[in-house]
């Protein structure tokens, strides 16, 4: 019986189209009568809009409409409604959309956009976290207290300041913890904002049909959210908004928020509902649409001489930019996991979001974890040095284990935490840790290694849900329809594998709908948080049960036996005792015709769903709560060759061992972890949003925004530990984001050892290392 289910590296289902160039992305589609939009964006980071003169633009032939922030009144945001789709009255960041031209062609729209004259009155700029919190700082939002909060108890701001979120963790007895500490270390860290740089820039098509139906074609990770947001903002019946999402060319969290969809809807509305396409240029994608947060943090850790951590105190201040979006949620997620995967019984954490006149932020791979993990893992290194202890050993001593509790007091067991010690031990061997962490190899060269741990759970709403629908084709193959978007990691293939495993059939005989259409696809919260295989996978298993139940019912009639003695596998239903007595599923999947022509059944349709359960919002005073169902833990290492003369370096190796619970598709899993590691190396070594004085973005182009290029990748080593998460499909845990989380810290640890200085910021460019060695701060 041919079975290709989980644990097998089958190629991703969309790969043949992708490697031959036949895959179609959202902007590849056109339609008759399509119009094009182009955005005018702010050249100031903070300024009053005195006037917008559109008269020269509207005169250009082929221009149909120009809309500005004054065209309507609306504030958006998933947590607090603070953001107008187009700036109204004032601009709060460089690149903020100010006006939109709709024209016959993209060229005409862009030409007209260049003729729109915006008169600004510059305002004092909040250009850094320090600037945002200093006394008397200009306010990015004067009317913060009047904004609508989408849900109660999600956001805790300080009126009259730029502090828009404050999350607290109060665990144990800190005073006692410090008393028990014989060694105390502390340090400050600084990590800048950065961009997502998905290969496909953000884009959308919007159309309003004659009967009022709104059709959105977009490159998003959150089609059902787009549907809900549009319905809510424009007072539409949600079912009258249909959102289509084909393959998405990368998201990394950047495509989780509804932004361009709202602008494109307004643009279509301005031209009587005609279809309008809006594609961001790379520069707009990097400045106008949301980016990755920046963080300033302070960490203090105390330990007894045996290396056991007794107390820890954290201050995180997150640069969320000009609008909150999901920045407040990341601020909360960082606090919830603030200790890293270490047992610390006495913890205090204060995690803040502050407004600045920078591009606003949204989810980014790791949802804030890579930033605070940098801080704690650098401090662990410092602690190991102060204790005179091997840094890997220190991590092993303090690794969270079943029976321990998290900062939010979730009790841990193997199922929800996995096995970090095993990850560390495996890593130790893989990177040959015992040969030493610093080796001088001559000619100014030093080879060094650094390690880091990671952990992450999701931060989904407590009622996040997913659905799955399975239909049987006449040839016995199956169709699987789910609401998860294919953003690159091979989700649709993994889901087919989960279904194949349950039905003991070949995953290649399961067709998964690549497009998501909110009109026909079952709901899925969002394709985020490394939760897709967990949530949708469980829905698929639920649907499989339903399908099997129906198959057995028909088969029991055909085979004239009770359903309990039958089993499904290999495309057949057979008797458990005598497998040769069987019927092919294709004979009964669309009704069974008796020899006399009398038929029973009909198409068999399996349906299933999943909802998050037992999640508990965090208590504002203590932080007690439960944000996600389980963690995936892991250990990472980076090895570099550093040139002590000129402070340049080569990244030789990067290694990751993650407790994946169960690996569904080994090559896909390895690929997604490697992708994360590559992003982590890029962020750690060179990526940053540079803002000049006045808040103008200095590097909004790939010429000047430095990325890891293909030829710079080191040798990647990826391995998995499998401690089942008992309620995950076949025990799996979400690992899609995790590869990025500890890498910047591991890189900084390796380079600090090599350069023999404390490197507490990113990006770690040769110049930054050179300056630190000279004793200058960044």
């Amino acid at each position, binding site marked *: 019986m041919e079975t290709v289910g989980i644990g097998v590296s089958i190629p991703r289902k969309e790969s043949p189209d992708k490697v031959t160039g036949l895959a179609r992305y959202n902007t590849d589609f056109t339609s008759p009568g399509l119009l094009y939009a182009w955005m005018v964006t702010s050249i100031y980071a903070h300024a009053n809009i005195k006037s917008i003169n559109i008269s020269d633009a509207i005169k250009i032939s082929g221009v149909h409409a120009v809309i500005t922030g004054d065209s309507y009144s609306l504030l958006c945001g998933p947590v607090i409604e603070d953001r107008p789709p187009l700036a109204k009255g004032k601009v709060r960041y460089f690149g903020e959309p100010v006006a939109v031209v709709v024209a016959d062609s993209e060229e005409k729209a*862009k030409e007209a956009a260049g003729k729109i004259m915006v008169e600004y009155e510059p305002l004092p700029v909040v250009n850094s976290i320090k600037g945002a919190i200093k006394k008397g700082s200009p306010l990015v939002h004067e009317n913060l207290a009047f904004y609508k909060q989408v849900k109660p108890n999600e956001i805790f701001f300080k009126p009259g300041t730029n502090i828009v979120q404050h999350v607290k963790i109060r665990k144990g007895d800190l005073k006692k913890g410090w008393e028990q500490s014989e060694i105390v270390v502390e340090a400050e860290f600084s990590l800048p904002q950065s961009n997502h740089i998905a290969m496909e820039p953000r884009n959308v098509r919007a159309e309003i049909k004659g009967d009022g139906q709104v059709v959105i074609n977009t490159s998003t990770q959150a089609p059902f959210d787009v549907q809900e947001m549009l319905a809510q903002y424009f007072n539409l019946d949600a079912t009258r908004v249909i959102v289509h999402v084909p393959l998405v060319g990368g998201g990394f969290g950047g495509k989780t928020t509804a932004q361009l969809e709202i602008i494109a809807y307004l643009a279509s509305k301005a031209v009587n509902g005609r279809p309008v396409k809006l594609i961001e240029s790379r520069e707009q994608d990097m400045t106008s649409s949301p980016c990755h947060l920046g963080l300033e943090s302070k960490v203090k850790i105390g330990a007894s001489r045996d290396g056991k951590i007794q107390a820890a105190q954290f201050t995180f201040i997150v640069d969320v930019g000009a609008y909150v979006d999901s920045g407040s949620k990341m601020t909360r997620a960082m606090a919830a996991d603030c200790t890293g995967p270490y047992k610390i019984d006495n913890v205090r954490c204060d995690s803040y979001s502050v407004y600045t006149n920078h591009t606003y932020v949204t989810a980014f791979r790791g949802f804030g974890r890579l930033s605070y993990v940098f801080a704690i893992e650098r401090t662990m290194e410092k602690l190991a040095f102060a204790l005179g202890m091997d840094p890997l050993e220190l991590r092993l001593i303090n690794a969270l284990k079943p029976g321990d509790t998290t900062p939010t007091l979730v009790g841990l067991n193997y199922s929800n935490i996995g096995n970090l010690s095993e990850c560390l031990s495996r890593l130790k061997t893989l990177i040959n840790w015992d040969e030493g962490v610093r080796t001088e190899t001559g000619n100014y060269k030093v080879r060094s290694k650094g390690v880091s741990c990671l952990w992450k759970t999701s931060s989904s709403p407590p009622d996040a849900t997913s659905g799955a629908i399975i239909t049987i084709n006449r040839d016995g193959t199956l169709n699987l329809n789910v609401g998860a978007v294919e953003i690159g990691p091979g989700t649709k293939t993994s889901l087919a594998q989960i279904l194949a495993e349950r039905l003991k059939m070949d995953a290649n005989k399961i067709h998964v709908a690549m497009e998501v259409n909110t009109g026909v696809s079952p709901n899925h919260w969002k394709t985020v948080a490394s939760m897709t295989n967990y949530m949708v996978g469980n829905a698929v298993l639920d649907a499989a049960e339903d399908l099997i139940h129906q198959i057995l019912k028909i088969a029991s009639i055909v085979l004239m036996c009770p359903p309990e003695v039958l089993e499904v596998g290999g495309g057949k239903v057979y008797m458990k005792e005598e497998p040769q007595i069987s019927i092919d599923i294709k004979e009964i999947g669309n009704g069974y015709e008796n020899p006399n022509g009398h038929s029973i059944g009909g198409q068999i349709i399996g349906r299933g769903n999943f909802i998050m359960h037992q999640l508990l919002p965090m208590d504002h005073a203590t932080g007690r709560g439960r944000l996600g169902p389980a963690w995936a833990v892991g250990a990472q290492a980076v090895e570099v060759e550093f040139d002590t003369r000129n402070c340049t370096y080569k990244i030789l190796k990067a290694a990751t061992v993650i407790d994946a619970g169960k690996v569904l598709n080994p090559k896909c899993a390895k690929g997604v972890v490697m992708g994360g590691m590559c992003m982590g190396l890029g962020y750690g070594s060179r990526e940053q949003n540079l803002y000049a004085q006045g808040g103008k973005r200095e590097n909004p182009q790939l010429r000047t925004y430095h990325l890891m290029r293909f030829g*710079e990748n080191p040798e990647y080593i990826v391995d998995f530990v499998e401690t089942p998460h008992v309620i995950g499909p076949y025990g799996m845990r979400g690992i899609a984001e995790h590869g990025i989380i500890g890498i910047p810290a591991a890189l900084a640890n390796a380079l600090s050892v090599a350069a023999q200085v404390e490197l507490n910021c990113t990006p770690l460019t040769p110049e930054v290392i*050179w300056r630190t060695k000279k004793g200058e701060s960044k």
Partner: protein
Amino acid sequence: MIPFDFEYYRPDTPEEAVMLYDDLYKEGKNPLYYGGGTEIISFSRLYQLYPGAVIDIKGIPECNVLEQKNGYLVIGAALTLSQIQESNIFPLLIHCGGRVADHTIRDKITLGGNICAKIPYREAVLALLTCDADIMIQGTDGKKRVNIHEVFNQFLRINKGEFLLQVIINEKIARLPFASYKTTADGAVAYPQDKIGYPVVSGAGINKDGKLRVAVSGVCNYPVRLAEVDNALNDTGIPRFERINNAVEFFPIISDMEGSADYRTFVLKNILFDMMERLEYY
């Protein structure tokens, strides 16, 4: 995407090109000579350049030559940096030009385009400055051959309507031992290229008759070879470190997001040191 219409011409001869320029200029079309187009396209799509017409010189046979003639190398201005790289005709130029942008872009960027560009770095020029190249210029009154040092000062100073036809290099000089190093904000770039980025410092040097000649890019807002720098480096009466310290004093070193002035100075000193090592110049 370029948000305006413009005229496109592709003349067959240099004479036709300059006449076209003259006509288009008189018509107020603000014409530009067009090689690979990477810069014209980049600036135009950002509303920073509005040529009414472009004159593509890639159809002119003289601009496409690549030959060794009477002891000289003749390289047409319309050859792409990739074509020059593949020809293997001039190792120093190949090293300097072969680390500009990335391979795909070098398939577009022409030698003439790199020399005449607005971008500060123009690394192909380094090879021409160190090797005292001649350049052939086409004007309305015919062709003229001039030494690069006469016309290149921060940028190529030729008259409106003239264009760069060819570059001519003494073959003997082109074959001399050379050194070429490039460092970006992310570290040193090997050849063949393993990193992409603007130079913090890109340097080219040769040893001719026991004298060092050095040109650098990334240090100032333009590629440059200074007689004072060459003199300082060749002042063999004093220790090498001191010579290097003296030499770097002559550059007005820039500071920008790729690197601060003091960091560029540090990198420049290391590169000069490495060049001296490589060229066995002590």
